[in-house]
Each structure stands twice: as structure tokens, then as C-alpha cells.
């Protein structure tokens, strides 16, 4: 019977598509003249059909776009461009209580205290055999150096690791092909105090002598994803910009772009743009790990936080780490090399075969492509041109495969399809350029609106890209959407790359500022998605799993309310005996065991957010009432037909009052005459 219903639904959607197309045509013919600009002309004719996902049907891919200065990750469906979720990572989210409730506050703790915001640039999916496996998403916090892990079973941030000896964790997080390590490089070099640990003091005139960079090697547990900072490599005091791992023949290597090899400490705009060439740093991570394991590592004091969510209690816990191990490149021969690269390079991208490393020199007129096999040969032949801090520098020509001539202006990033082509964003000339990796010839160009930063092909940074779509993320949108005052959203543009020529399909506004993004076919993530938490597995110490066990208890000036929520009431919903100035902690357990039935909890006057409790979980909200009165609390997520009735009262008496603690839910029911009692 259900099969029949499904057939009917399919039949209906079969009719729906031509109808929608027809509507699209009509709309286009009406509005065509008015829009009439160059913007419409670049759009593929059948674009509407290519991105149309009928109501009730699912997208082909999940995409994870970083939120930049909102500190979150936005999840969009591809090809529809529909927003599926916003995952708070480094930023408090009043919407669900992340970073506001007692369980998630520790997640945002750092050695600087509670840091409720960060600048999230690069999401990276975890990998198995060099391919995205859909288990976790790693992301960097740029401002107060941190690396986070999001669990893709729950789409929740489950771990945040602070990175010591780093400042501006931009060059991060880059997983090796089996997540052996997540690499995180510092953008700003800083003076590092090897004796006391952490950032040291130095005059700003001493940049050249005292400032150092660091590259962190974070170990990832194969089974549960837990991170551990294994060691750091202390590198010359450049700015480390971006990185990418090798694959295939180059899979033991990770490549980092650097700028400010001039080591200017001020007006870097000019100071860091003097050298004609900066460096691409190549690090053999396997060798580094071997050196670290074989006792080449030194140890220095440190002070950094490691915050982890416990699955059972659904509570984050902070651990403070006090030491860090480090390697010095000058003591580790063969571990690190420098390749001269055009002035102030930005992105470094390794093609799917692992042979070609593309350096996107944002100020350069050509796009250099380096060869991994030539690099191996140059190492063999010691084809060096001096060294920096004991690190050998290759001759440019001995490692260069060739250059893409006149690719466009301001190349920033490159990704690859599965047919041997590279696609590069040109920030200044506002276009995407397709070129062939073998012969380095430009094949196609497409204008984008405007000033693209990163671009993303699903799996475009792995050994087997999904060469159907490309998402280009633009920094400037100006006239692209209805104006919304001075602050405009950035945009993503979806481009079909399955044919010889690129075809523009869709653009959609994006939250805050997406830098990089990742995407993965839905089948790798959707089947594992958790529907609700099992109440039986909830080990939160303050959980109550039955309405019989709810309680309100006073300990000094703290009042603990262990309560439950279920459609459509709280237990208890009448509370008395709280006094002005008490710290009240509501520990709310959502007793529901069904999909999509969160209950929210908010109380009047709380200097806090609400908290949104998923079925089976317990969350705690702290509240200090400042005035006497009777305060309502209520469920904030429309949960049921009687959601509006899902509310209660807390009576707050003046300090020192003799109103005793008392709580209840409902009044004893009179037994209806001539009927059996009902429960």
C-alpha cells in the first residue's frame, strides 16, 4: 500500500518538473528585458532544470561552507543551494544555547579564558585512503588559534583544540590521507619563549631575530576522531598562508605557501612584497613523525586547552595541557625544503595524481606548476640554491614543471576535476579559468560576480574529484541581489563543469564570509545521521529520566532544578522557594524519543540565551533572578499542538524570605463518577 503511495508521489513529481520549467520560461520572458544585463547572458539555458530539486526530494551532495567571521559552518544542499543547517563551532549561538548553556560553555574555553567568537576559514573533511569519508569535518579558528572537529553523525562540534605557539591559525587544518595528522600552520610569526613556553616578549624591532612560526601536527584517533597535539615544527619567521597535502607518489608530503620572507614587522602590505620570490615549503610529514618518535623532539612548557564533548553526558570538558614537543628543521635533515615561488603566493593545490603542485601567486602574472618527481630528483642531486635557517632552498627551474601563461589577474586558489583540468579563481579579474594540467593551456574562462576567493569542486582536493559541479565563493556581491543596506551577504555560484565549457547554473547568498568549502555525496553522510539521542544512554549526572524523579533542591545559594520536558508540559511546572540572588540551574531532560521533537527552554530576565534540548539529552541553563516576582518559563520550539501551553512559573521571593522549596506538576485529578480511574 505504501509502495502505491510512493508511486503516486513519483508520478506527481514527474508532472511537477515540466510545470516548473514552464513557469521558469514565462518568468524569464517577462523579466528578461528588465534584467537584460550581461549577468543573465552567462546563465546556462537549462540551468533551472539542472538545479531544481523538487519539494520533498533530497540534494545530491552536502556542502560545508565556512562562515568566516561568523565562526560557524553553513551546510548547503547541492545543486539546489538550499541552506540545510548552520553549525556553531567557534561562536556562541543563542539560537540553540551553544556556548551559553553549562554543557557547551567549556567548548569555547582557551588559555585566554572564554573566547566566544572566532574567524573560521577552512573546513576539511576527514579522509580514508585519500578520499573524504563523511565521518568528521575539521575547521580552523584563525584569530585565537584553534582546530575544531564536527561529528557528521550529529552535525555538532564535538572537540576544539587550542594551538600553542601560533598566532593566526590560517594555514590550517590540513588532513593527511588517512587523518594520520591534521596540520596547522601559523599565519603570524611571534616571539616564542622556549624557556617559559608560549608567546614571549620582544621589541617589535627584533622581528628578524626573535620571531618564529610553528606548524602543528595533530594526531587523530582512527576510531573516535579524538585529537592530540603530537608535536610542532618551529619554522622561520615567515607568514604561513595555506597548505595542502600530497597524494599518490607525494602522499608523505605537505606543502605550505609562505609570504613575508622579508620578515617585515610593519606595513607588511609593502614590507612583505619586496622579494620577487617567496617560498613554497615542503614538509615530509612521515619523516617528521619518525624524527619525533625517535627522540629528536625537544619539549617546552605550554598552556593550552583541549575541549571535548562526552557522548554520554553530552557535556564538554576542558583539559589544560602543560607541555608541547617540538622539532627544529635544522636538526632534521630531509624533513623540510623551500621552493622559490612567485611573490606572496596564496593557495597551494596538489592535483589528483599527486605529481603537480600549483602555486597561486596572487601578485604574479603566471601560474607556476611544480613537479613532485623533479623535486625528488633535485633532492637526490642536491640541486640547491643556498638555505634559510638550515633549510635547503631549491633552484626554481629545477623543480618547476611549467607555467600557465596569462591565466588572469590575482590567482588565489585552484581545484581539479577528474579529467586532468585545473580551475583557478582570479580575484582581481573576477573570473574562473579552466586550464589543462598537462599542457598548461587555458581552455575556458567564466566571469563570476565578483572577486572570487576560494572555489570548491567536491573532492577537488582529493585523488578522485567528483567532476560535475564547482562552487565559487565571491567576496563582493553589490548589485547581485536586492539591496540590504551597507552590509551585503557574500555569494556562492554553482557552475556545471561536466562538459568542455563551464556553464553557470545558480548563485545564492551565503552567511558571513565563506572562505573554503568542502562537499561530499549525500550517501556518505545521510544514512549515518542520528535522529535522536537514546535516553537510556544519557549519563548526564543531572538527568532525570522519569517525571517521578524530578526535584528542586537548595544547596546554600544555589537552587538546582532537575526537570523534564515532554509534549506538552514541563515537570515540574510550578516552582517556589527561589530567592532573589540565588543561582538557579535548570537541568532540563527532554524525555522524547522521537525524531524532530526538540524542546526549548527560556526563562524571563535570564542574562543568557535559551537552550534547545534534543530528544534524550539534558541541558542546563543558569539563571540569577534579580527581582522578586513570579517568572514564567516556556518551551521555545513549536513542539506540538499544545506547545503554547507548554509553560510554567517560578516564584522568586525576596532574599531571606521563609517560602520553602516546593514544586509540582498538575493538581491531583478528581476521579470522574462512574468511570474507572484514568492513570
Amino acid at each position: 500500500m505504501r509502495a502505491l503511495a510512493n508511486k503516486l508521489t513519483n508520478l506527481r513529481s514527474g508532472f511537477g518538473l515540466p510545470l516548473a520549467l514552464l513557469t521558469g520560461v514565462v518568468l524569464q520572458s517577462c523579466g528578461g528585458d528588465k534584467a537584460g544585463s550581461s549577468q543573465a547572458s552567462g546563465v546556462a539555458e537549462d540551468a533551472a532544470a539542472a538545479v531544481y530539486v523538487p519539494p520533498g526530494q533530497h540534494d545530491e551532495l552536502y556542502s560545508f561552507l565556512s562562515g568566516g567571521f561568523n565562526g560557524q559552518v553553513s551546510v548547503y544542499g547541492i545543486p539546489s543551494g538550499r541552506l540545510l543547517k548552520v553549525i556553531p563551532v567557534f561562536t556562541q549561538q543563542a539560537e540553540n544555547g551553544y556556548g551559553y548553556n553549562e554543557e557547551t560553555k567549556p567548548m569555547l574555553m582557551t588559555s585566554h579564558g572564554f573566547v566566544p567568537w572566532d574567524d573560521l576559514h577552512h573546513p576539511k573533511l576527514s579522509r580514508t585512503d585519500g578520499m573524504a569519508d563523511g565521518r568528521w569535518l575539521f575547521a580552523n579558528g584563525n584569530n585565537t588559534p584553534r582546530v575544531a572537529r564536527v561529528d557528521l553523525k550529529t552535525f555538532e562540534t564535538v572537540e576544539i583544540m587550542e594551538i600553542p605557539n601560533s598566532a593566526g591559525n590560517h594555514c590550517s587544518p590540513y588532513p593527511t590521507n588517512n587523518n594520520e595528522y591534521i596540520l596547522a600552520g601559523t599565519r603570524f610569526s611571534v616571539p616564542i619563549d622556549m624557556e617559559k613556553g608560549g608567546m614571549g616578549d620582544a621589541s617589535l624591532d627584533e622581528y628578524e631575530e626573535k620571531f618564529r612560526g610553528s606548524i602543528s601536527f595533530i594526531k587523530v584517533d582512527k576510531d573516535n576522531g579524538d585529537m592530540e597535539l603530537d608535536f610542532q615544527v618551529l619554522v622561520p619567521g615567515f607568514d604561513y598562508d595555506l597548505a595542502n597535502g600530497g597524494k599518490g607518489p607525494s602522499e608523505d608530503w605537505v606543502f605550505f605557501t609562505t609570504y613575508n620572507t622579508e620578515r617585515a614587522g610593519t606595513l607588511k602590505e609593502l614590507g612583505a612584497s619586496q622579494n620577487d620570490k617567496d617560498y613554497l615549503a615542503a614538509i615530509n610529514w612521515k619523516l617528521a613523525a619518525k624524527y619525533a618518535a625517535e627522540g629528536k623532539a625537544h619539549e617546552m612548557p605550554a598552556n593550552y586547552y583541549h575541549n571535548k564533548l562526552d557522548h554520554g553526558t553530552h557535556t564538554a570538558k576542558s583539559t589544560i595541557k602543560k607541555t608541547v614537543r617540538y622539532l627544529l628543521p635544522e636538526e632534521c635533515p630531509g624533513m623540510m625544503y623551500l621552493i622559490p615561488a612567485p611573490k606572496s603566493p596564496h593557495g597551494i593545490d596538489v592535483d589528483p595524481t599527486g605529481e603537480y603542485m600549483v602555486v597561486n601567486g596572487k601578485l604574479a602574472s603566471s601560474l607556476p606548476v611544480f613537479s613532485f618527481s623533479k623535486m625528488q630528483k633535485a633532492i637526490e642531486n642536491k640541486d640547491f640554491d643556498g638555505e634559510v635557517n638550515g633549510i635547503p632552498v631549491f633552484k626554481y627551474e629545477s623543480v618547476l614543471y611549467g607555467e600557465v601563461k596569462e591565466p588572469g589577474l590575482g590567482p588565489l586558489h585552484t581545484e581539479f576535476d577528474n579529467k586532468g583540468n585545473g580551475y583557478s579563481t582570479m580575484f582581481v579579474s573576477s573570473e574562473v579559468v579552466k586550464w589543462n594540467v598537462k599542457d598548461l593551456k587555458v581552455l575556458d574562462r567564466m566571469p563570476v560576480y565578483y572577486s572570487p576567493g576560494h572555489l570548491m569542486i567536491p573532492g577537488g582536493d582529493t585523488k578522485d574529484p567528483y567532476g560535475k559541479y564547482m562552487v565559487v565563493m565571491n567576496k563582493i556581491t553589490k548589485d547581485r541581489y536586492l539591496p540590504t543596506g551597507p552590509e551585503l551577504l557574500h555569494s556562492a555560484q554553482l557552475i556545471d563543469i561536466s562538459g568542455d565549457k563551464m556553464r553557470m547554473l545558480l548563485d545564492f547568498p551565503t552567511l558571513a564570509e565563506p572562505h573554503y568549502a568542502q562537499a561530499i555525496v549525500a550517501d556518505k553522510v545521510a544514512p549515518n545521521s542520528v535522529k535522536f539521542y537514546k535516553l537510556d544512554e544519557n549519563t548526564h549526572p543531572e538527568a532525570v529520566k522519569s517525571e517521578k524523579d524530578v526535584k528542586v533542591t537548595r544547596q546554600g545559594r544555589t537552587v538546582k532544578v532537575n526537570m523534564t520536558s515532554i509534549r506538552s508540559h514541563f515537570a515540574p511546572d510550578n516552582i517556589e522557594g527561589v530567592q532573589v540572588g540565588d543561582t538557579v540551574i535548570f537541568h532540563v531532560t527532554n524525555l522524547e524519543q522521537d525524531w524532530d521533537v526538540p524542546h526549548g527552554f527560556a526563562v524571563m530576565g535570564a542574562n543568557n540565551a535559551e537552550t534547545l534540548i534534543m530528544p534524550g539529552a539534558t541541558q542546563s541553563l543558569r539563571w540569577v533572578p534579580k527581582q522578586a516576582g513570579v517568572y514564567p518559563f516556556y518551551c521555545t520550539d513549536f513542539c506540538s499542538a499544545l506547545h503554547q501551553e507548554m509553560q510554567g512559573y517560578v516564584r522568586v521571593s525576596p532574599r531571606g524570605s521563609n517560602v520553602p522549596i516546593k514544586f509540582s506538576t498538575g493538581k491531583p485529578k478528581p476521579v470522574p463518577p462512574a468511570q474507572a480511574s484514568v492513570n
Partner: protein
Amino acid sequence: MSVYLRVIMIAAALSLGLLFLFPMWKIYLQAPQYPEGLELHIWVNKLGGSSESVLQNFNILNHYIGMEKIHPDSFAELRYMPYIVIAFMVTGVLVGLLGNRKLVLVWVLLLAVAGAVGILDFYLWLYKFGTNLDPTAPIKVPGMTYIPPLFGSKQLLNFHALSLPSWGALGIFLGLVLGGLVYILSKKSVKPQLA
């Protein structure tokens, strides 16, 4: 009675074992906001469903209309029915071993009566749950009762309820059919011997 018929009789008795492997009856509920559906499975010895927490979810929905909570402990039947089934299985096997035609008939008739009583009992429960509603319930529709269908489908407010026997009930059906077959066939096979 031939060996074949005795074997079939024993098979009839053992087919009741299906009751311990599968639910007897299933009630399917569908509503716009429950595209995945809710299934209540009635076993000979327990209540189950499409998910572990299906009873809680049934009860949450039902409490709005004042229906009593469904709880396995409320049904004494779930405690003693398994013994009745086991008794039928044991006696059925014995009847098969003895090969007594009259006992076959008695066994089949008793099983039929037990099955009928079971269905009647099931209906009475449905009736009780569907009509014994809390007068203080938030949702009261004048004249509305919520007796789920015994067999077939019915619209109950936003829910489309469908009630069907499941594989476990097939065990009883097989017991009756195979037992009946043994009774009828054994008559034919007896005749030539007498003639």
C-alpha cells in the same frame, strides 16, 4: 494414520511457533507529519513496534484525546498467552505422534475457539481504549471515539490507521489449515483399508 499425515500434524503444531518469531497483529498509523509511519506490533507475549520507543510515542499522541496509556503490564494476556500457545504446540505434537483422528479434530476445534476468543479479546481492548477517554483531555471532539480498526483501515482525526494480521497470525492459520487437512485426508486414507 499414515506417517505423512502425522508429520503434517506435527508441522501444524510447530507452526504455532511462528507466534514467538513474529508479531500476531500490526497497527500502522500514518499522518502528514509522520511520513515514516508509526507501527504498533502485538506479539503473543509483548508489545513492540517500528522503533524501541514506539509505545511512548503512541501514548504521547493519545494523551491529547485522553486515551489511557498503553503499557505492557496492563495486559495479563501477554503473560499467560505464551503458555496457551506452548500447550497447543505440545498437545499438537502428541496428537501427531498418537495419530488419533478424533484428537486431531478436538485440537483443531480448540485452536479455532482459542483464536476466536483471542480476536474477540483484542477487539474488546481496542473498544476500551477507543472509548474510555479522560473527560479532562485537551482535545475533545463531541461524539468522537477512537476505536482503532480490528481489520482494515480507518481515519482517526489526522491519523490514518491500518490494522492487519502479521506473520505470527499465519502460525495459527497454518495450525488450523494443516490440522484440518490432516483430519480430512486421514478419513480418505482410512476407507480403502476398511473396504
